[in-house]
Structure formats: C-alpha cells, structure tokens
C-alpha cells in the first residue's frame, strides 16, 4: 500500500498507539477525581500540556485541549463572536477556508453578523492589503488559515499578524491544521491570538486536538458543564488521546527536522514528473507552498475515476479535501483561485508524510502514467 492522502488523515505512529493503550489501561482515572488514580491522570494531562506548549514555543496555560480541528475552529470563531458581539459584529475571513470555518461563519451570519470573505489570487494567496481594506470599526475577528488543505498554499500569516496588531479590538485566529509538523509557525511572533491544530494530522489519534489561546485573550466557552480546561471546554478530558497527541507531536517535529528536506525532494520529483505528462495541470503554486501537498487536474478525467484506478494498484490519493469528497462539488479553493469548474472537478490531491519514500513516488508516477494510458483508450 502506498498512502498518499496524509492531509485527510495520517496513520498513527506505533509508539503513539502504545502510549494511548498504556494510559487507557493503567491510568484510566478521571483527572478531576481526588484519589491517586485521578492524580496520576491529572499529572499526565499537565505533562502533555507542557510538552505540547514547549514544542510549539507557547506556555502551558495557552493550550486548550479539544476534540480536533473542527471543534477548535468552532470555539475560536463562535467563542470570539459570543464574547465580543458587544464590540462589533463584523468578521473577516477568506474564500478558501475549511468548512468548519466557513460554516461557522455562515451560522453567525444567520445570527446577524456581517462576514467578509477575502478572495485569493491565482496562487491561492490572500493579499494583506485586501484584509486591511476590509477592516472596519465593527471588526472583532480575522480568521485566516495557514496552509490550505487542498492546494498547500501558505498565507502570509506574519504580515497579517503585524497588520492586526495595530487594531487592539481585533482577535486573530489561524487554522494551523495542515501546517503543523510541516511548516513552522511562531504563534507569538506572528501576533496570533487563537490557533487551531488537530492530532490526527500528525500521526496522533482522531478525536484529539487543541486550540492555542494567547495569554490574556478571553473567549466564551461553547460547552457548559464541569468546568474543565479553565471553564473553557467542559467535558472529561481525553487523557489517553492527549498524551498520545503530545508524543505524536514530538515525534513529528523530530521527523520534520530530519526529513523535511527529503520530503521536499519527493514532492519536487512528483511535481516534475507530473508536469511531463500530457494533459496534467498543477494547481499548487511553486512558491509559498507546504512541502507535502500537490494538487493537479488531469484533463478529460473525472477525479473519482482516477482515484479508484489508483486504488486498484494500492495507491491512495484524494479528490479534494476528504471532508467534501462525498459530495460531488468542485473544490471551493480551486474555484476561488479562478480554476474553471470542469478542471476543478477533475482535481487530485497527493499529500505526503515523512513515512513516504522516493521509491513510492517513483511507483506512483509509473502507475499514474499507466492509468492514464489505459483509461484514455477506454474513454476515446
């Protein structure tokens, strides 16, 4: 099997599963319980928090554990809206956000908030000036993703942070789900107030994630209850999942240090080889893009057919983002970049992990060539 759908989810590391198993078996106590078992669970929780904070150059109390990217994005956006609706009811975001951002915005729109969607250029990048122009007295939140999940393009987070710093009323949220472990991001240097990440994108487990909440920033909780996570996110903590995530992050960042150069080499190889194939158009920009994503269209092929053709040979890729794969809808990021609908409907995403090898890339390219030749015969 050659798994090239790592932006959808990653395979949990064996060591990560071992930690999950051991914590679930031996330290299953509720961190809120007074007895020793609870104490151990609490210790594990705080050690995991410290480790994650340290790895991301944040402080422990700035890490709020959640169930994943979708929840973190919901808390960040709706929590800010609830908290500061008295200050203003205008929110700025981009046209290429993940559905958990976009749909949160739409829900707020229905509640009377005004939402500005900033367009992107043909490389999939927003312009800082456009954001600046959109800012009004009423603006309380700017939410911009870091690495786009469909094309891998990187947004100018630092510059946007510099801009927003001048407006003390505005909270800056960044969706870092695709970037973490691949493209470093300094939360404090970039003036980020809220930052989302998710465990299963870096070889942790589904159902784990966190929201970075910069010290001093207050948002309304969405879950009411027992007051866990400093009253910000009630519900018994997923201790085993959280410990597993802490370990996954450590291992991933270690791999990033050692292997990101190799990943770029593999990515460049795939890109170069795809460009040679007649009818293939690559949507991922050459500059300002993450090292693990390549998005391309094959002229005249339905993306779905191609995904299944590769699957027959044991190669797993994705049509667009996995969350929207089941609905036959063209990638909204590509459409926003000005890619024609027909082309957007035939787009394929290849996404790497540090586990992928050059041999796999070579085999992938061979299989793509084969599949195209075979299918072209059928289709013509």
């Amino acid at each position, binding site marked *: 099997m050659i798994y090239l759908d790592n932006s959808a989810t990653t395979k949990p590391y064996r060591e990560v599963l*071992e*930690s999950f198993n051991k914590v679930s078996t031996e330290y299953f106590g509720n961190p809120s319980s007074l007895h*020793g078992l609870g*104490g151990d669970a609490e210790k594990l929780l705080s*050690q995991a928090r410290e480790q994650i904070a340290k790895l991301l150059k944040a402080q422990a109390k700035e890490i709020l554990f959640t169930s994943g990217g979708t929840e973190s994005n919901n808390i960040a956006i709706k929590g800010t809206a609830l908290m500061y609706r008295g200050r203003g009811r205008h929110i700025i975001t981009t046209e290429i956000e993940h559905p958990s951002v976009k749909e949160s915005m739409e829900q707020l729109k229905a509640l009377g908030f005004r939402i500005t969607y900033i367009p992107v250029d043909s490389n999939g990048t927003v312009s800082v000036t456009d954001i600046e122009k959109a800012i009004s007295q009423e603006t309380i939140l700017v939410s911009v993703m870091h690495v786009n999940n469909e094309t891998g393009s990187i947004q100018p987070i630092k510059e946007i942070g510099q801009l927003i710093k001048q407006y003390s009323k505005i909270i800056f949220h960044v969706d870092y789900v695709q970037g973490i472990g691949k493209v470093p991001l300094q939360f404090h240097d970039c003036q980020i107030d809220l930052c989302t990440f998710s465990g299963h994108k870096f070889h942790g487990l589904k159902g784990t994630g966190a929201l970075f909440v910069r010290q001093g920033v207050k948002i309304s909780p969405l879950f009411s209850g027992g007051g866990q996570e400093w009253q910000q996110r009630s519900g018994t903590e997923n201790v085993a999942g959280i410990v597993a995530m*802490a370990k996954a992050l450590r291992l991933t960042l270690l791999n990033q240090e050692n292997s990101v150069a190799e990943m770029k080499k593999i990515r460049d190889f795939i890109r170069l080889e795809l460009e040679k194939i007649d009818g293939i158009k690559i949507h991922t920009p050459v500059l300002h893009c993450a090292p693990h994503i390549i998005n391309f269209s094959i002229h005249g092929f339905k993306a779905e057919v191609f995904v299944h053709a590769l699957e027959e040979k044991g190669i797993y890729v994705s049509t667009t983002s996995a969350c929207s794969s089941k609905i036959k809808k063209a990638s909204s990021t590509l459409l926003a970049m000005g890619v024609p609908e027909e082309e957007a409907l035939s787009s394929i995403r290849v996404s790497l992990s540090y586990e992928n090898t050059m041999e796999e890339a070579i085999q992938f390219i061979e299989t793509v060539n084969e599949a195209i030749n075979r299918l072209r015969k059928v289709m013509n």
Partner: protein
Amino acid sequence: MNYDRILIRYGELSTKGKNRKVFIHKLKRNIKRVLRNFEKINIEADRERMFILLNGENGLEIIELLKNVFGIQSFSPAIKTDKELENMKNAALDLFKKIHQAGETFKITTKRSDKTYYLDTNEINQIFGAHLLKNIPELKVDVKKPDINLQIEIREKAVYFSCENIPGAGGLPVGSSGKGMLMLSGGIDSPVAGFLSMKRGVEIEAVHFYSPPFTSERSKQKVIDLTEKLANISGAVKLHIVPFTEIQQLIAKQVPENYSMTTTRRLMLRITDEIRRKNDGLAIITGESLGQVASQTLESMYAINDVTNTPILRPLITMDKSEIIDISRAIDTFEISNRPYEDCCTVFVPASPKTKPKKEKVQYFESYIEFEPLISKAVENTETIAIAPKAAEQDGFGDLF
C-alpha cells in the same frame, strides 16, 4: 564572525575581599549546573571576570539561562582576538554588523587594561570609529545616547570586543552565603521567600509537612513541582518531606482548639530545626508576612519563635500580598501554588485561632504532652528527595511521552 564567548561581570562579589575565591567558585559551579546540557562549553574564571567559551553551542539559549543565575551583574557576548590591528578591525566590524540595523547610532568605549599597549585610548577610539564609519553606510556617532556601544578591552594577552550589555539577575551566587532550611507549605509565599534567600546567596533545602490522609498525594506533588522551579535557579534543591499526621492528631486531641495552631507551628519549627542541625544548615527561612494570618502576628511569632534561637529569615516580612504575588508570577510558581489542594497549613485549622497567643500559656499546654519521641520519629522517617531541574526528570511515566 560570530561571538564565540560570553563575558560575565561579577556583581557585588567583586568587593568581597578574601572570600572572593569561594564566591567565584560557587558561581562557576552554579553556571555549570544550569548549563549542564551544553556539553561543549568551557568556563574560565579569573578574579575580574568569567568567560564561557561556546565552542559551537547555541549562544542564544545560553544567554536566556544566564539571565536567571544569581551573582552576575551583567554579561556580554564577545569575540576574542590577538593584538594585531588588522585582525582587531575585522573582528570589530563583523561583530558590529551582526547587531547593527539601519539608522542606529554608535559609540566606542575602550578599556586599556594593558597600559603598555602602543596605542592609547583616544587613538583606539579613533581608529575603530573610522573603520566602522568607512564600512557601514550612513552610520552616525552619538556619544551621549548611542544605540550600540562597542566595547573594546585591551588586556595583556588578548583583546575582547562586545556590543551588548545584558543585565544579570544580580545578587550573590547561591551557596556563597551558607545553607538554610526553607519551610515550604505549597502556598504562594514560601517559594517566593526561597527565591529571595537564594538571591542573597543562601543555598536552600526545603522542608514540607505531609499529613496523609488529610492531605493528598497531589499536595505533595505540588510541593515537588514548586521545588523544581527553585531548582531551575541553582541546579538542584533537596526536599525533605516530614510525616506529620500523628503529631497533628495528637495536638488536636490534647491542646485547646484556639491554641492548636500555635502549638502546630512550634512543633514544625522544632522539627525543621532538627533537620537543619542534621544537614549543617545555619538558618530557617519562612514565607511569613507580618499580619497576613493569625500565625503571622508579632504576638504569634513571639510565641512560636520561642522554641529555637536559630536565625529565622523572613524575606517577605514587610511585603504586601500583591507584591508577593507579582514575584511568584515572575518566577512561575503562582499557578502551581494556586492548585486547590489542602496542605499542612489548611487542614486542622481551628475556627478561631488565637491571634495574640501567650507564650506562657502555650508552654503550659504543651508541658502535659510528651512530644519528643514523636519529633524524633518524624525526623527519622523524613523522606529526602533530590530535585533536579525539569529537563533531567522523567516522572515515572516511562516512555509515554
């Protein structure tokens, strides 16, 4: 050319006469402990200053750690050269370019310790000033308020260049003023008292009273975590955990309720004093602040202090709670202290403890009770843990992380 060493200027200890050797030795030991993860560094110390030779280790990380070490007045990343003028000029320019940003002004300060050097101070200033001005476009001199002060020090065997003066933590090297026992409850005040004593050179060992099942494993963990924060400053701190349940129960049974607190404190002090004696300490340190609670009125202190004539250091005695909290936040112990677990000071608190206990009365109540055997037993069963800074520690959770 990047800086290859860090020059450390001693604080007050420059004035300490014959004890100076001891001070420098302790400072060197503490720096070594704090920088133990940087294996390649070399520390050279002389009477005037200390040099940390980086040998390729990460200077920025080392600078951050040095900021917390007591006994350092200030320090500067520096370059060493021989006394060849051309080499000196190149080094000065390289170092300067590293930190200079467009629009910044500069001046040069030369210290000519080697009085035999063929150029005098003014000549050196002029030569190097001209060299920088020639090579960096639009650079300007400002001798009153320069953005960068390039310091040149001509010594007998070498020349040192540095551009930044980073303030150190001041104070005296931990251990240079002897050892004291810190009574560490787990509250906000005692870690701050420990920190301030360390600032004046006291090496501390912490003493904690543990009363299971009235206080939980977590309150003990809290104290371990607090000790760890203090260990970050000096490299290592011992923690003595005294089993106190039996004594507290006896007090509750035998001493009138409104005096039980006074007696409890007296016994804690006696036990701490005994541990001090066994460990060659010279003082006891507490986090008392005058009038803060019933046990910290002058009357209470008078009645409690009666059990020993060992010096008791009370660094917080005149501080307001808000000042103490500010320090505890700065040294990162506030959040730990605020964890909501019962500790030895909060269990068995009488409804209305005496704020003005009489020494004679408490002596009288205690005269009916045989405490000595229990005190010896508590001291004997005291558990001593050596606490190292965080990085070295594993927590018993094995490879979970």
